[in-house]
């Protein structure tokens, strides 16, 4: 079984203007959404309290809200369904730092007339911890970007590193845009999802770049756009397969993973699609923008090979004792 004819070279570079326009729209659209709608930071990052309740029957939202408003601190609490009609989440911004008080218990007392339920989860995050978690999260994203940049610059060439960063930023922004659009609560799991997307999309990019690097050395063509076409076509099967398989697993996660990982899975779905498309249509053309020169690279490679040969020659002469 095979999906793509491996002989055929698809002209991706011809499609790139259409694809780039789409990327532009998505990218700036995401930025627009991020600025207007904003990210929904969960209590992991803002501090606050979250209580998850599971009712034995459909949760009576109106009654719950009414019962909560009896308490001064809980007046502004948001009550939302979570996963299904039986399960709800109560969120509010306050948090108590006293070990003695138990917010889960006091909410259970307030709501005891609304039906039979079980307190499934109580999360309390103090504002200081929230700050710290957010700073650490941003730090993690920043540091991994820099580490990758350095690795790629050493293994490939600085233009490849730059191109992959452009592509990464593109993916992260679109993923964040989707998070804002779908109003997913940004907490630590979502941060992990975003970082996975970062790694995943990079995977795709690197595999295509690896081919391009190989093509630059071996292709009969010496025009970069033609080499890119060849390389992307050659890796197309792999790209579709791997993306398809990963996407399947994440969709399964989304459908069956339960409401606790729903946001995580949705973020991954968007990120994986964006990452795959961008590694074909953003990363490769970015090499052209940064004016990667095939001839220069070949020249450099040639010199490197020559140097190596000379060294070997010298060594063999030395070993034979002719020097």
């Amino acid at each position, binding site marked *: 079984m095979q999906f793509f004819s491996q002989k055929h070279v698809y002209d991706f570079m011809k499609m790139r203007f259409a694809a780039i326009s789409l990327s532009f729209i998505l990218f700036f659209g995401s930025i627009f959404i991020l600025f207007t709608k904003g990210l929904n930071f969960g209590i992991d990052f803002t501090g606050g309290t979250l209580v998850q309740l599971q009712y034995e029957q459909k949760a009576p939202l109106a009654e719950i809200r009414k019962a909560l408003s009896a308490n001064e601190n809980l007046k502004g609490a948001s009550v939302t369904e979570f996963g299904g009609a039986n399960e709800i989440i109560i969120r509010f911004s306050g948090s108590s730092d*006293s070990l003695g008080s138990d917010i889960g218990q006091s909410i259970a007392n307030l709501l005891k007339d609304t039906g039979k339920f079980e307190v499934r989860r109580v999360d309390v995050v103090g504002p200081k911890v929230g700050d710290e978690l957010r700073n650490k999260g941003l730090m993690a994203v920043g540091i991994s970007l820099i580490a990758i940049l350095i690795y790629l610059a050493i293994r490939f060439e600085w233009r490849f590193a730059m191109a992959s960063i452009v592509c990464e930023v593109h993916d992260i922004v679109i993923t964040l845009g989707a998070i804002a659009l779908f109003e997913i609560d940004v907490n630590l799991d979502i941060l992990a999802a975003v970082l996975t997307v970062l790694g995943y999309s990079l995977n795709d990019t690197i595999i295509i770049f690896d081919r391009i690097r190989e093509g630059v050395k071996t292709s009969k063509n010496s025009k970069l756009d033609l080499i890119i076409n060849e390389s992307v076509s050659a890796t197309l099967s792999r790209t579709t397969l791997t993306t398809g398989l990963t996407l399947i697993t994440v969709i399964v996660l989304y459908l069956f993973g339960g409401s606790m990982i729903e946001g995580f899975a949705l973020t991954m779905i968007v990120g994986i699609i964006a990452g795959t498309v961008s590694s074909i249509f953003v990363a490769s053309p970015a090499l052209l923008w940064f004016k990667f020169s095939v001839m220069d690279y070949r020249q450099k490679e040639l010199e490197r090979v020559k140097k190596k040969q000379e060294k070997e020659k010298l060594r063999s002469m030395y070993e034979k004792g002719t020097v």
Partner: protein
Amino acid sequence: MRSGKITYRSIIFFVVFLIGLVFSIPSFMQTQSGAKINLGLDLQGGLHMLLGVEVEEAVKSKVKSIASSLSYSINKEDIIVDKIKVNDTSIEFTLLDENDIAKVDLLLKDIKGLAITHENLHYTLSLTQEEIKLTHEQAILQAVETIRNRLDQFGLAEPNVARSGEDKILVELPGIKTATDEARARELIAKAAHLQLMEVDDVRMDQVNNLTPAQAAEYGDLIFEDAKNPQIKYLVKSIPILDGSMLTDAKVGFAQSNNLPVINFTLNSEGAKKFGDYTGNNVGKRLAIVLDNKVYSAPRINERIGGGSGQISGSFTVEEAHDVAIALRSGALLAPVKMLEKRSVGPSLGADSIKMSMIALAGASILVIAFMVMYYGIAGIFANIALVANILVIIAVMAMFGATLTLPGMAGLVLTVGMAVDSNVIINERIRELLREGASIRQSVENGYKHAMSAILDSNITSLITSVVLYAYGTGAVKGFAVTLSIGILVSMITSIVGTHGMFEMFMNRMEKSNNTRLWFGYRRP
């Protein structure tokens, strides 16, 4: 041998597979003994708390305790001073007799970590910066130790208490089932268990209801409420006679008079001596037994109390008395703790999460496995064997190193299923390419692996970089995810690169003989 040869690759893979199988069995079967994978609190239910230590309080009580022993020594040496005053971080007093300067200086020389200034007869003692730092450090270490001791005695399964960062303590209590248990555990941790024996200020005691705390402080006194009845207030001297740091044991007993639970405590020799001396010199005065700033009883001293034991009686239930005794035995908290973060997950939610992620893991695996066989034929089967080995080894490695499997970790595991076959997809695509160019099967396999290697290595190393960064900067959930992902990546290098190569080599002769690329690679040569 007809079927090809067994190379070092297949041997390595076989060994790895076997290790994975053997060491992951205990995690799958609860009855098996051996290292099991740790389930995170989000998967088994339990309580996770991050506590902050109020180190400033430790400094204050250190100053107080210095003042208390200084006051004891000054009395003993018959030095006459105007009353000793304690501020948050300093002690002040004024000598009345110039001739005592030498004696006081000698006393002060024995106390470490003090910066002493004096104008004429007025002394100011304050803690040095290093001493303050040291006190902070001690307060945290001691809090970790104390909380651990208390929870151990509480009888919970595997409580985990660890220092986290500069001044925080992470407490994890897996398997807390009911809200009452949780409340008891929290109270036990929070209990400062700060026992003080203090002198009641008999002179001004009758004014106690008219004094503000500030006015009381003017006299060097404190106002405390009675533990049973907050209406009753006591005026006590702010410098304690002695405190719980000199306590060696505390046990629950029952009072003879009314059979109510009491706590009997024993003091160490230093404490016993001070207690004996004080009670001997102050017969007729009242002694307040203060626990966590509440007065439990204030008996009048009838005679010198030697032997260094005392009793706290009060409105305890048996359970309370038991918890207070645990708290006293395990030592007072030098500094109070406050809750910075608390996450509690009910056991039913944890069970649901496991069930859901198991379904996701199984579903994803079946789909991926079926697809690989359809697309790549026998090469797909090889990749699938590698995939199964990969999952088993991840579980085995996590069990062996005591890593914790969390919900995001489960997600990482599911994701690994999708990503682990990536290497094999890259390799198989390369093999197909070479076959298309007309290379022999043997050459195609050998060169396929060679060509694919740089792409696989580069992509795996970058993924590894991100997960290491995630681990280093992440907390809790993110760390769990990073652990599974990094182990997955490392293991997949052995299983899907070395392992599948070994399998190809094992079947090489058969492959060449049949020359059916459709069967072996799911691809017909053009």
